[in-house]
């Protein structure tokens, strides 16, 4: 998939797997946490994305575990996935910095963390 067409969902799924492999529900929980509860992945969406990202080599199955009679398959970020995420993060950060700078130049107050971050952007 082209970098510029990767969705926010996919970006957050990749981000959720940076620190360690997670199983399906672990990814759902982590994505919700990373987005401050704004993004609740549905199972159909999650597995569609996992199939796609695995096919593209950005993710790989890590291991299977049985816990409480339930099968949990863990996924990990591949080197290729980490590189793609880094590229996306850099592009988004650059866009965000540009938007923040222009808003500050117009004297528009920025909400939340951006408003208190000083003029670093």
């Amino acid at each position: 998939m082209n970098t510029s067409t990767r969705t926010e969902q996919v970006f957050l799924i990749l981000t959720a797997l940076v620190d360690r492999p997670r199983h399906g529900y672990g990814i759902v929980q982590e994505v919700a946490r990373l987005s401050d509860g704004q993004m609740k992945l549905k199972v159909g969406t999650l597995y569609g994305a996992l199939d796609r990202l695995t096919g593209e080599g950005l993710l790989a199955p890590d291991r299977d575990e049985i816990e409480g009679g339930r099968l949990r398959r863990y996924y990990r970020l591949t080197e290729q996935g980490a590189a793609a995420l880094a590229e996306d993060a850099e592009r988004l950060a650059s866009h965000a910095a540009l938007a923040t700078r222009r808003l500050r130049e117009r004297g528009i107050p920025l909400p939340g963390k951006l408003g208190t971050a000083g003029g670093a952007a």
Partner: protein
Amino acid sequence: MSAKQGTDMLAARYRRVLMVLPAAYRERRGEEMLSTLLDGAADGKRRPSLAEASSLAALAIRLRVGAPGASRRAVATGEVLRRTALAGLLAFGLWHGTGAVGNLVVIASERSQYFQNTPGSTVAWWLTLVFGLPLVYFGAFIALVLGRRRLGRFLGVAQAGFVAAASVQDRYPATSDMAAVFATSLMIALATGLGFHRGSPRPAAPGRWLSGMIGVAGVVFIVSGAAIGMHLDGHSGDTRVIDVIAQINAGPLVPGLAAVFGLVRARRSPIWPAALFILGLPGLLIVPRALIHYAQGNYENVFIGDLFRGAAWPGMAVYMLITEAVLATALVWSLYLRRARATAVPA
């Protein structure tokens, strides 16, 4: 009911919802997905939510049209759908486009008469707008070929859906047969929407697609332009039927070209014959329409008037039957060739 009984009941209901997924996928992923669903279920939850069920249904549809993780057959189905969509967008763009060109000639040559024949100037402008819209078909085709999936899908589905809706209301002047136009438009909208799903590959060799479009459009517009010229020479007093003249020359040409192309491509793969055969199927609705007209002794087509009295409907019906028969033969032959190759013992 105990907590365990509640969980077992919920698990059984989730299993039933997971049945919408293709069997092979369910076998590979089913238990893992069930665990994810159960892990995410709140205490005391008794049944899957509508959002969960619709999300799985959407995944099931995507998997059946070749999304990543789908079977080889589903991947082929997706490819057939994408070619059905592209061929349909091109065919309808040409068909309505030739009508539009003819109509523009009418407007340019007898604008006042055109308006007199239409009840109310608002409707006249609406018709003019509708005749301009065929360009959207070409826009959708080009966008999809160039990999602009979202734009192409929006344009294709919106335009084909619009024509389908307008043909039901009998307000679209290009509808010489509403049922066939409605069903074909619906087919194009569905094929575009389903085939160009998230994760679908972009068409290979876009340059070849675009040059093919230009080549076919060139042939069709030259033929219909020649028909307009001949009509203007012979019937300069009546320009109202020019758009129909253009369409009835372009109309049969498109399925004819498709039948020949399907036959030529059959040797390589059954994908093209299948796509073109599927696209032509709704066109067969013209056959019962022709039979009804014939049985009633009503040969006259209100658009064509005296020019082709008695010939248009039965002729088109027989023509559509022949082109579909050619494509069906090409498809069967192609499937036979593929099976023969698969079972051939290397020397």
